């Protein structure tokens, strides 16, 4: 019985599951920090996909890896800005419950 090798599908399923968890978190979590973490999860899922495609489909090129690094960079910047906003809000409101953040409505 040959060692069950890990194929592209496995990576894609992992990515999809991870993305789904992240999405669920983004849509349901009340805490802004948790939402940020969920976003990170989604980005991770994307990164996994990128790398998996890179490895299995175009192993001779680095495009997937480069993209993944881009995503990580952007994610870092985004988290930095996001946290700064959350802190600013917290200082004003002493609260980071997303349900109360509806001042931009209408």
């Amino acid at each position, binding site marked *: 019985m040959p060692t069950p090798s890990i194929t592209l599908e496995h990576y894609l399923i992992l990515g999809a599951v991870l993305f789904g968890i992240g*999405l669920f978190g*983004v*849509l*349901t979590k009340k805490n802004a920090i948790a*939402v940020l973490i969920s976003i990170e999860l989604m980005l991770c899922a994307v990164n996994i996909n990128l790398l998996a*495609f890179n490895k299995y*489909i175009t192993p001779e090129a680095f495009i997937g890896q480069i993209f993944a690094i881009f995503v990580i960079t952007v994610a870092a910047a985004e988290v930095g800005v996001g946290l700064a906003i959350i802190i600013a809000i917290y200082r004003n409101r002493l609260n980071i419950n*997303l*349900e109360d*953040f*509806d*001042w*931009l*409505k*209408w």
Partner: protein
Amino acid sequence: MVQFSMHNAWLVPLLPALSFIIIAFITKQWKKTSAILSVGSMAISCFIASLAAYGVFSNYTLTEEPMVYSVKWFSMAGLNIDVGVQLDPVSAMMMFMVTLVSTLIFIYSIGYMEGDQGYSVFFSYLSLFGASMLLLIISSNLLQMFVAWELVGLCSYLLIGFYSHKVTAREAAKKAFITCRVADFGLLLGLISLQLIFGTLDIVELSGKISNFEQYTSMGIMTIIAILIFIGPIGKSGQFPLHVWLPDAMEGPTPVSALIHAATMVVAGVYLIARTIFLFAEVPPVMDMVAAIGGFTALFAASIAITQRDMKRILAYSTISQIGYMMLALGLGSLTASMFHLWTHAFFKALMFLGAGSVLYALHHKGDIWKMGGLLRKMPVTGYTFMVGCLAISGVPPFSGFWSKDEILLTAFDSGHYILFTMAALTSFMTAFYMWRLFFLAFTGQAQHEVQVKESPRTMTLPLVVLAFFAAIAGLIGTPWAPIWQNWIFSVHPHHPQANTMIMLGSVVLALAGMYLAYNLYYLDRSKAERMAEKYSFFWALSYNKFYVDELYLWFTHTIVDGGARLFYLFDIYIVDGIIVNGIGSLTKSFGSRLRLVQTGSLQSYALVFFLGVLAVAVIMALTDPSMALGLMGGVE
């Protein structure tokens, strides 16, 4: 000299026009200069016109073959309009008459308007009027004539409203213009139809084409066109049922009433029909209609005149009535008789108006004849010249009115329209009655007024005397025994009705009877008149209130027209603007205010919608074009 005048007849209207421009822009401050300019230009025009008229008559130019000089006015593909001068006996006669009467009335105005604030303005308007009227007369094209026709209307408006600070004058001016406008609507339609059917409005060309109109159109259409054109004269010449403006027009200064509303402008309608007689001659039913309306108006206006109290109003109704005579004659096909009456009427009616003006001038513009009395002694020139006018209009031989009226009665009798003849005869009796009623009440008996009366200045009496002279003798050129007039002015064939002594005698008897009745009621015993009025109070009220025609029109404009206008306006602001325009606006607005509720501000619901949107796009793509969806999802093949 005569040749020069005939070839340059365009100078006749041009000179007064120039004087209008000069007065309006330059000499407005200098009253005397303005007056002299105005009178001078008209006098020169009169001189040229008389030479031209002499030339036309001595050449025996025919009405059907006039001398025409024309130039292009404007043109475009399919529409060419020329303007020009048309000289024939009718226009030459009119030109001479108008310039002569105008000159006299201009001179009269020098005295009458003395001390008025708008002295120069008055003369500039008079000049403008003279120019427009003469332009109307010499027009060789119906559109040109229409232009002049409206311009005289404008002058009439300006001059009736000359004392514009008076509400009555203002309203009268407006009424005159708008009533004529209603009529001009018909005329304009007629002209448009003529242009469309015959492709020209040139009078000579038209007369050629209309003589065999069957090639162009049908009898029915021609009848309609003729009726439409006739509507214009009904308004301008104050015929029933559009006569209502003319009595009110007496609000204007008296020289204006004499010039515009007696001698010249109001007969423009008659003149227009005379010009287009070739058209009317083709449609006998319309000719009968013209005659019937003329005859009816003559009687109708006379029956109003017999009870009026205001001197100028009586004269105004008398004008309407006399123009009715002219229409009657025209409708019966006698250009000769109609123009003859127009000619004599101009003199005696201008004379009487100027006489009335002289009286009003002395009485400080109080026009009620019951409050006059005994003026003959104090104002002999005015009084006796007025008497000449009354004799002329009543038809007492040998004064001018007798001959022309006789011509009309004869025509009516010969044509076999006995009803019209009876109406005309009856009118003749009533005319004599109300004119002498006016004369006896105003000039004889006890003075009923308080003011010190004295004869008017020389500038006013001189025109009176000259006009009285013409009023007395102007008819002698057309007697049955020396039918000079009849050989000059005619359409197609010279018209020589056989002198009918019965009719001649009859008309004299009628006139004398009318005079006698007036003498009886208003000279011998005035209380008798009042008793008569009480006895027939119904008829008296009907006549005194002008058969309530004005009230009817007033009701119509105020209720129907203004009511309709308000309805349209309300429709506009509530339906078009309120419901539709603002409706669309508020619909957009309310839709927006609903839609904005979707923006809850909750980040997560935005994210959900966003995600669902992406999902939907992916699903749609997968369903419609699987290969594309695959490609999108990373498929390489």
